[in-house]
């Protein structure tokens, strides 16, 4: 799941300067689940903006709407109907959603109300933890389900750096466990320690340029 958090209000108010009327647009997908950009958060941001502008004695014209996904065009019906009434859209989706909105309405500025942080998991209500960097070359099968890209400070692929502390923590940041210490422990518990000896060769860092993916069963559909 994509995890994001709201930008500071000051940054948002600077960004929306001169762009009214403004539509605060929520997303019913990932940012709803991570409690950053769902309908409740839209209502809160709407109130915060009204309060802010009220305190400085200025008018602000706002609208609010939440659609189920900002990353899938089939959910844009209601937004298509209403977006023409606004000068700009303040999107509470992840970066992918903001760009999708921007692409669909190129003459209407689409502004991000959130900072998109990571792909992660729910630890508890309101608490999320990064687990994946979407590198496009997953090695979790060899590392006992522990990602060395995300959880090793140096993103090492072939064992620890030699700086692991005696208590199994990382030399870069002693508050985090050494990923390879954890990987060793996990593989040992699974009786698959031989995987530690498997050499991963230098990789192609696929997430440095924009990627596109068509799943195998659908390739024929898009061939010309």
């Amino acid at each position, binding site marked *: 799941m994509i995890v994001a958090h709201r930008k500071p209000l000051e940054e948002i108010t600077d960004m929306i300067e001169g762009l009214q009327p403004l539509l605060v647009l929520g997303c*019913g997908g990932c940012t*709803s*689940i991570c409690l950053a950009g*769902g*309908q*409740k958060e839209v209502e809160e941001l709407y109130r915060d903006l009204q309060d802010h502008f009220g305190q400085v004695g200025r008018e602000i014209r706002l609208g609010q709407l*939440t*659609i*189920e*996904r900002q990353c*899938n065009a*089939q*959910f844009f*019906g*209601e937004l298509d*109907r209403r977006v023409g009434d606004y000068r700009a859209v303040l999107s509470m989706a992840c970066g992918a959603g903001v760009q999708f909105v921007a692409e669909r309405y190129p003459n209407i500025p689409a502004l991000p109300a959130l900072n998109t942080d990571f792909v992660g998991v729910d630890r508890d*209500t*309101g608490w999320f933890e990064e687990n994946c960097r979407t590198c496009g070359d997953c090695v979790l099968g060899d590392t006992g389900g522990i990602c060395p890209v995300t959880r090793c400070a140096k993103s090492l692929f072939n064992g620890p750096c030699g700086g692991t502390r005696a208590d199994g923590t990382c030399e870069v940041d002693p508050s985090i466990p050494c990923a390879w210490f954890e990987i060793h422990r996990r593989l040992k518990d699974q009786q698959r320690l031989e995987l530690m000896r498997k050499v991963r060769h230098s990789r192609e860092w696929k997430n440095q340029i924009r990627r596109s993916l068509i799943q195998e069963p659908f390739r024929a559909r898009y061939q010309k």
Partner: protein
Amino acid sequence: MAQTPKNTIDRQKLNDLLDYYAAKMKRQLRHCMHCTLCAESCFLFKMHRGDPRYMPSYKVINSLGRLYRRRKRLELKDLEEIKEIVWRNCVLCTRCWCPVGVNIPEMIALARAVCRSQGVYPRLNENFQQESWL
């Protein structure tokens, strides 16, 4: 930080939305042949061992259909019951398929939009636990 829902319907806002989409709702609801072929395409239906409440057609008829039939008499109680169907019983995976072309995900999303227009959507309860909203 428990969330407090509204307790009154904004009748003007609700009617504006339902009136705008009434023709589309009527058309899509009429097209449904009750053939149940959509059920085979829903993993929730299969996961719940064929519970008919998870059939896509059931979900549309009992959410959007209810909104359409009762559109001049809707109360928050109706929306709260519809919320259970369109959020708990459907994850909007968009995998459902209809042989006559009913756009099931669009209908579910429309039902959700009507609920949202009245402030009815999944919220945290008093123990800060999320409702099953997926």
